Structures are given as C-alpha cells and as structure tokens.
C-alpha cells in the first residue's frame, strides 16, 4: 500500500510545486497580496508531500517490499538496516527523489526564514524554486518512478554491490546534493531580481547566507568523496581529476566566487550584474554536474543512452532552466543600474581579483572536462585531459589567490593604502619566509614549494587579521578578549575559512612527497619506508558474512618503538566474484601510515604476500582543511547580521568593524 501512497504524495507535491510557481508569480506581477502570500504555504505543502513520499520509499526498503522494482533491484533481505535506508538514494530513481526533497526543503527554508523579505521578492523566489522543483518532480513521475511495481514479487532482492555498502558512500549523496541544490536559492534570488529589475545592497545581503550554506555543504560533500576514494581505493589517491569529480568542483569554484562577489554587492552595490550571472552559472553548473555526468558523455555510464526518454526529458529541462534564465539575463540585465566606484587597491578590488582567479580556475576545469567530447564531436579526434594538465593549469592560478586571500579582509573598502596594511604583516611575512626555507629544504618541485609557502602565508595573514581586529598585544589581553567577543562572527568565519584553505593546501603540497613501496614478503620480514620499520607479523584467513578475508598484521616501529599494529585485509566475495581491499590507516594527525595487503604468492609451505605501504605526510590536513572551511562558513552563518531577514542595523559602536 505504502508505495502507492508515496506515488500519490509525489504527484501531490508536483501539483503543489506547479501552484507554487504560477500563483505567486501572477500575484507578484499584479501586486495581489492574497496570491503572493500563498507561496510559503504551498512550499510547505510541497515539502510535506515530498517528505511523505520519501518516507514511503524508505518504509518499502525497510520492510523488504520487493514488489517495488527499485527495492528489488537494489536491496536484499540480508542487507544491514543502515544500508537499506541509505540504499534508497543509492540509485537513479531514489537519488532524483532525494534531490527533489532537498530542493523542497530549500523552498521551505526560504518560506520560513524569509519573513522579512519584501512580499513580491519572496513570492518570486519561491515561484522560481517551485518551478525548478515541478520540473524534477515531473521527471521523477514520468521517467524515473521509484515506486514502480513488479508482479509477481520475488522473495528476495538482487542486493547491492558490497563495495557500495560503506558509511562514507551512504552519506555522501545527501551532503553533496544539499550543496548542489542549495545553490538553487541564490539562483532563484537572481531570477527574481531580474524580473523585478532591481539588485541592491539588501539583495546582496539576502543572497549571501544561502550561498554560504550551500557552499559549506558542497565543500563537505567534495571532501567526503575525496576521503572515500582515499580509504577505499587502496593506493593512496585522493583526487583523480575525473569528469565526475570535476563536475562537483566546477560549481564549488563558481560558488566560492559568488559568495565573495555578493559581499561587494552588499557593501558597495557594485558587481551586481556579475553576481547575478554567477548565481545563475553556479546553479547551472550544479544541475549539469548532477545530470550530465549520468548521460554517458563524460564517462562510460550509459544510463541515459539506454533510456532515450530520460535523456530527452533531462536535456529539455536543463535547456528550459539554464536557457530560460540566461535569456532573462540577456533581456533584463542591460537595464540594471550601475554600482558604486572603487579603486583597484581596496577590499572590493581584491574581491574582484579573487573572482578573476576563481573564475579562471573554473574556466580551466570546465574546458579541460569538456574538451575531449567536443574534440571528438568536432574533429573526430580523441584526446585525454588528466591530472598532468589540470595540475599544470590550475595550481599556477591558485597560488596568486593564496597571496591575496589572507589579508584581503584587512583592506578598507573603497580606497586603500597598501603600505599600512603590509606593515602589519611583518610577522606573517617572517613566518612565510621561514616556511619557504623549510619547504625548499623538505619538498621537491617548484609547485609544491610555492603551494606550501602560499598556504602558510594564507594561514598567517588570516591569523594576523583577527589579531589586528582584537588589537592583540597592543592593548591589555582582557580588553583584546572583550573585543574578540564583540567581533562579528562573520569576521572569524572568513578568517577560519581562509585558514582552512591554507591547511588543505599544506596537505596537498606535502602529499606530493608521499612515499610508497610495493613489496612481496614472507611473514616475519621487515621493510623500511620513510624511517619506519614495517613488519608483516602474521596473516590469517577470517570468514565474513558473505566473504572470506585475508587479514594481515603489520607492526610498524619507529626507532624500535612500536607505533601501531595494522590489520589490512582483502575480502573475496565469491558470489559476485569480486575482491575488495580494506585499507588500514594509522594517523597521528601529521601523517598517515597506510597499509594494504594484496595477493598471496608462492606455495603453501612458503607463502609470500604482496604489501603496499604508504607514508602520506599531512594527508589528514587535506580534509581537515575542508572541514575548517565549512565550519568557517557555518560560523559566519551564525552571525546575527548574516541571518536572513534580520533587520538591518547600524554597526554597533563597540565593534571594531571600522578598523
């Protein structure tokens, strides 16, 4: 019964979404309050219906209802409960439903937090969100119905690839999708602003928190995916510049640019048209990222090629959303009024530089990702664009970004003098010089050295920014502490996020010096790598629920002291004729010791085992940095001044915002 309920709820949500698009839009145009005030209710109704639909699907998964095709194909009685639930979004149909649910939640959030928005703006924003949602719910209903039934229902499902039963993979889609979908809100604000023909400081202030929230989720999503490949794939790799990964990096880069240019709109009413374009572009990239990677153009997954109806529907939908919004932009943007003036040396001047560099990196990643299929289409030639290209083309653009991002927030608005700011940075400069010396001594390669130096500079300048704001050591510590308490959280958030970039960059730079060794050893033999002695102390076979595992015991010693005992294993799933490796990672926060066990060789009397040993310096910092970035974003969201709908207030005299 519940699958039909779910299907009905989805149809209901779709109806709500259509109403949410049409009625408020008409209301805003006619200045009809009654129609405009329907928007929040409709958004709420839509998300409740979607939630009910989603719960029905989860219920079908938990209760092993194999009459539902989607559950039959992706679940089994023996699957652990957690993966029965998370498996709901681990397939095409379920993931579209999750996508729609998150979009519905975004709409409800705008309805709930947007009480202080002008009625017409709120109505239009919700209408745009409703329109996008309606399209995807229709897509779900017509071509990707998760509630499709099969008859007769088999006793057991076909199960899930054991490799996909992984906690990292289970929670990756919701986080990543929240990032992707979250950019729908700035997009909706941009469309609403184009319809109204008005972009002002208040608009910038309303858009910014949504962009920051989506960005923080996307940051976490990307980091989680990268971490997953690090601990699952078993050779220490963490980023492949794979089209699928790039598809998430592109909206992240343009979203980062958006977050910063919105500040300029808010504070100086400049870069307005550019910010609107960025908001449209970022959501367009998100949409394309989620859906075009499934088309088989960018990778060899022929999901759409096998079902032409899906491909046509989704391309039509993308065309409607992206093409429609860009057409609106072409029509309305030229009449938007100009913004404030500023000199190149000013805070907004550096924010412009930030946008130039971020968008350049974004353009490079986009071009590199799209070049092979376009070459193939236009010239019939096939090429590959991989890590060597992306490293060479993006890192030189990232390093100047590092140079300015830390002290950008220290510059005053409108017109600044470089010298007084630089003078305050002598400690940071000293630290960076020291870092440069250390990097030159310990790292090889120009790019890693520059990257590490830049990273330290970013962290040091971010710290200096905060120290300056609280006048650390210039006034008594107690007073500094007081100042810190009244310092806007957004300032802390920005400094933290910038420092997070530095931490990640340090990790990346250090990882270029990772060492590894592949050896074939008998039990008892010791190998040395990176100053550690790795001894294969024993190997045993352990049975698992549906696999047998070869479990190794590796003792790692440093100068004779036992550092850790690792238990990497290799699982053979007989039913699927698959093997997986369970990497063993020991981290002390500064480096990872990473051990993998491979095939058994030799005869049974004298067996030898292949071991893959890695020493990964600062590896955890790559993801730690991403977490710091996301936390910085969350911190600035908690700033009162950032909160949506909070009434605009004059800066309180006891803050040091004037500095």
């Amino acid at each position, binding site marked *: 019964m519940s699958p039909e309920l779910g299907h009905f709820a989805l149809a209901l949500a779709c109806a709500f979404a259509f109403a949410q698009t049409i009625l408020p839009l008409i209301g805003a145009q006619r200045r009809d309050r009654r129609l405009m005030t329907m928007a929040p209710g409709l958004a709420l109704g839509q998300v409740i219906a979607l939630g009910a639909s989603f719960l029905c699907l989860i219920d079908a998964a938990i209760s092993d209802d194999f009459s539902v095709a989607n559950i039959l194909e992706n679940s089994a009685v023996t699957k652990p409960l957690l993966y029965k639930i998370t498996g709901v979004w*681990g*397939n*095409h149909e379920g*993931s579209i439903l999750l996508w729609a649910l998150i979009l519905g939640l975004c709409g409800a959030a705008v309805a709930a937090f947007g009480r202080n928005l002008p009625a017409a703006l709120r109505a239009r924003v919700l209408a745009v969100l409703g329109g996008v949602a309606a399209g995807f719910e229709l897509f779900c209903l017509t071509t990707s119905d998760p509630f499709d039934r099969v008859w007769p229902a088999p006793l057991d499902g076909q199960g*899930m*690839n054991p*490799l*996909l039963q992984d906690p990292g*993979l289970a929670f*990756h889609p919701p986080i*990543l999708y929240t990032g992707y979908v979250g950019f729908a809100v700035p997009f909706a604000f941009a469309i609403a602003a184009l319809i109204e023909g008005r972009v002002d400081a208040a608009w910038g202030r309303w858009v910014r928190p949504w962009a920051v929230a989506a960005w923080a989720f996307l940051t976490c*999503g990307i980091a989680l995916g990268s971490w997953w*490949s690090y601990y*699952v*794939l*078993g*050779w220490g*790799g963490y980023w*492949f510049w*794979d089209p*699928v*990964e790039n*598809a*998430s990096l592109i909206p992240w880069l343009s979203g980062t640019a958006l977050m910063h240019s919105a500040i300029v709109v808010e504070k100086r009413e400049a870069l307005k048209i550019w910010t609107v374009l960025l908001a449209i572009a970022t959501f367009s990239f998100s949409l394309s990222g989620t859906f075009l*990677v499934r088309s088989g153009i960018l990778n*060899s*997954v022929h*999901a759409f090629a096998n079902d032409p109806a899906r491909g046509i529907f989704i391309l039509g939908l993308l065309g409607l959303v992206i093409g429609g919004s860009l057409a609106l932009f072409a029509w309305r943007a030229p009449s938007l*009024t100009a913004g404030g003036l500023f000199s*190149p040396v000013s805070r907004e001047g550096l924010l*412009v530089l930030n*946008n*130039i560099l971020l968008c*350049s990196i974004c*353009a*490079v990643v986009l*071009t*590199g990702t799209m*070049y092979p299929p376009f070459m193939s289409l236009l*010239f019939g*030639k*096939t*090429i*590959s*664009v*991989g*890590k060597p*290209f992306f490293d060479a*083309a993006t890192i030189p*653009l990232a390093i100047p970004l590092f140079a300015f991002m830390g002290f950008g927030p220290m510059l005053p608005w409108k017109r600044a003098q470089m010298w007084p700011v630089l003078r305050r940075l002598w400690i940071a400069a000293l630290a960076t010089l020291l870092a440069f010396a250390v990097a030159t001594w310990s790292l090889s390669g120009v790019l890693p050295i520059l990257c590490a130096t830049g990273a330290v500079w970013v962290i040091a300048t971010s710290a200096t920014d905060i120290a300056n704001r609280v006048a650390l050591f210039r006034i008594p510590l107690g007073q500094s502490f007081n100042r810190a308490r009244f310092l806007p959280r957004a300032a802390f958030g920005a400094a933290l996020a910038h420092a997070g970039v530095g931490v990640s960059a340090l990790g990346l730079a250090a990882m270029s010096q990772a060492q590894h060794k592949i050896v*074939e050893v008998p039990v008892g033999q010791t190998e040395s790598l990176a100053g550690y002695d790795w001894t294969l102390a024993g190997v045993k076979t352990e049975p698992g629920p549906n696999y047998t595992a070869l479990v190794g015991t590796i003792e790692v010693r440093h100068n004779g002291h036992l550092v850790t005992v690792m238990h990497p294993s*290799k699982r053979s799933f007989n039913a699927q004729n698959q*093997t*997986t*490796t369970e990497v063993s990672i020991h981290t002390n926060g500064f480096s990872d010791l990473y051990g*993998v066990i*491979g*095939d058994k060789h030799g005869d049974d009397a004298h067996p030898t085992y*292949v071991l*893959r040993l890695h020493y990964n310096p600062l590896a955890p910092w790559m993801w730690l940095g991403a977490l710091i970035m996301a936390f910085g974003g969350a911190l600035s969201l908690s700033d009162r001044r950032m909160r949506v709908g909070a009434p605009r207030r004059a800066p309180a005299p006891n803050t040091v915002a004037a500095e």
Partner: protein
Amino acid sequence: MFQRGRHASVALAAMLFLAPVLASAVDDPSEMLPDPKQEARAEAIGSQLRCLVCQNESIEDSSAGLARDLRKVVREHVAKGENQQQVIAWMVSRYGDFIRLSPPVTVATLLLWGMPALALLAGIVGAVVIFRKKPQAAPLTDEERARLEELSRER
C-alpha cells in the same frame, strides 16, 4: 576489466561522484625496476599515460590488466635507457593521443592550453573596464527630474 560493459553498481558509484575504479591496485612488486632511480623515472612516465580502459586514471594508478601490461612495457623501455619523449612517442604511435593524460599542444588543443591565460586576460580586461569607469552622475529618475523642473521654475 577488459569487457566493454561495466558493472551497473560501479556505474552508480561513478554517477554520484566517485572515480569508478574499485579494484585495488596492489600489484606484483616483481614488475618494479630494481634501480630506484629508473623506477622513479618509469613512474613519472607512467603517470603521464592513461589507462585506456579506465576513467581518467594513469596506468600507474590502475589495476586493469592492460595498464599492468603497459607498465611493463614502460619499464622495459626505461631499462633500455629511453627517455620520456621516446616512451610516450612509442605509446602514441600505437594508441594515438588518447593515451596522453596531458594532450599535445596542437592547433586543435590551443584553446585548452590557452584557457588559463585567456580566462585571466578576459578577467583583467573586465576589471580594467570597471576601474577605469569615470565617476558620473546617475541618470535622474522621473521624480528627480520633476523636482528639478519645479526648482528651476521657482527660480
């Protein structure tokens, strides 16, 4: 790994985000060159070559059978004393430019290689336009114009 079809669930992983290579790349250490310097050179060359049957991975990072064979070939050539260009040329003559993870600079890839400079230039030109803009009074709104007229009439 050689079959042209792909495992559906692996495809799913790829669809979400992840690089679709789930097999481990633990390999036979016997394929490594005994001389660490040569091995390092071979690794550097191998990381420039694409595993043909994978996504965007190099042959050094892949456990596919063909990648293993190509690794062996690279090491044979390195042991013979060939340099990076020679090994890559050997590979390109067999598999075309597809095998190079960093495509050659040709007329057709000019846009790709020129993109960093092009994007930066476009950004700088845009910024210069913004910064060189002369301060000018915003056009008067109808209201202001009416007020101005009123004022001039008063005089």
